[in-house]
């Protein structure tokens, strides 16, 4: 009886789910911005800060990558207020996502920069460019395009982890779906819709990624 798919129910819950979708997308978008910035900070600290700072950063990055985002979110949301930092749920969620995925972004930045061949740095020096000129005109234009597919991959991964924010009371898609399921005792429709939504979004992103990869794979051939 529960297996019967009820279209009427689907239409009835759709507006509520769409409210959740909005929050999911907002959280992903803000989280991505925070991750991009924090990743840059991590990468710079790790690559060019004094040794003790670099090592501490490396440990912090390892620690964050080795522990579940869910637990980190609990920490930010429920423990930080003990020391006087009380963040609204969405802000806490965005910061959690941002820090967690920032550690991944940092690795991508580092790899991207290290992948620029040594010959390019040397050619820049042989043509007497200064360090800032080398970064701006030679290294970054070559380092960034190959990063884009990897960064987009993490963006998609982060998007799929937003349901975790329900643990800290953010009413995103998964939380809305659970709420609907709980008050109607029907899991199949809301959960399937959530699954379909994620699947559709990530299939679209996969196509977009392929396009990105094709677009940015062109800049090479030294």
């Amino acid at each position: 009886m529960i297996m019967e798919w009820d279209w009427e129910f689907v239409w009835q819950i759709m507006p509520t789910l769409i409210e959740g979708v909005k929050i999911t997308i907002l959280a992903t978008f803000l989280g991505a911005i925070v991750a991009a910035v924090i990743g840059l900070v991590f990468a710079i600290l790790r690559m060019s800060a004094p040794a003790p700072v670099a090592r501490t950063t490396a440990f912090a990055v390892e620690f964050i990558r080795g522990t579940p985002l869910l637990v980190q979110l609990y920490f930010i949301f429920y423990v930080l207020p003990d020391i006087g930092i009380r963040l609204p749920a969405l802000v806490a969620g965005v910061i959690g996502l941002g820090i967690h995925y920032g550690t991944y972004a940092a690795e991508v930045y580092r790899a991207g920069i290290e992948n620029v061949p040594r010959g390019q740095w040397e050619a820049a020096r042989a043509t007497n460019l200064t360090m800032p000129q080398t970064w701006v005109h030679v290294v970054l234009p070559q380092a960034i395009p190959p990063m884009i597919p990897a960064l987009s991959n993490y963006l998609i991964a982060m998007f799929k982890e937003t349901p975790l924010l329900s643990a800290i009371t953010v009413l995103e898609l998964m939380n809305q779906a659970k709420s609907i399921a709980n008050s109607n005792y029907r899991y199949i429709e809301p959960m399937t819709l959530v699954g379909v939504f994620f699947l559709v979004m990530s299939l679209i992103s996969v196509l977009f990624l392929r396009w990105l990869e094709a677009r940015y794979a062109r800049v090479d051939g030294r």
Partner: protein
Amino acid sequence: MIDWSGYIGLILEGAWVTVQLTLMGSALALVVAFAAGLGRLSRFMAVRALATTYIEFFRGTSIFVQLFWAYFVLPFVGITLTPLQAGVLALGLNVGAYGAEVVRGAVQAIGREQREACIALNLTRYQAMRHIVLPQALPLMLPTFGNNAIELLKGTAVVSLISLTDMTFQAQVVRAQTGSTLIPFATILVLYFIMAWLISLGMRWLERRVTRGLEGVRV
């Protein structure tokens, strides 16, 4: 006075569930990663299509949804799994889909030149895969496999959703009983980190073993 030793015991029980999930999930992930990864490189269209569908589906839908399906929907088609089985299934298939891409990438990275040498030496496709390509591809996969195993470990935290008493779930229980948030969560953070660290240690050890004698430039 709070009986911390008892509660720590509870968390350790959860840690054991987490370890079991991680180990069994990784084992399943490894098997399906090779099956699907090599499947995607198959000569046969049908096998390729099947592997691709599996990979895109499990990478595309969120692990939460997969857990829910494994736990709440599968029983309706007559497959009733214990929570542990459902957790292992969902995590293993999810991470396996990512692993499949690693397998495919590593096998493809063993370039055309090595495959051509195999053809010139008249090895069969199976022999080439077994003796030449996989032994060289394996060291390339290991670092990413290590990362995947850690992702899986972290993924186990969400199984509390299907009533599995893993470490995070037990921390919640302890929190509900004692009213303390900091202590249980700090404890499990450290425990998770130790587990992740052990995984990377193990992986590095494995890497050293399989790359022994392979130092230096590729030929």
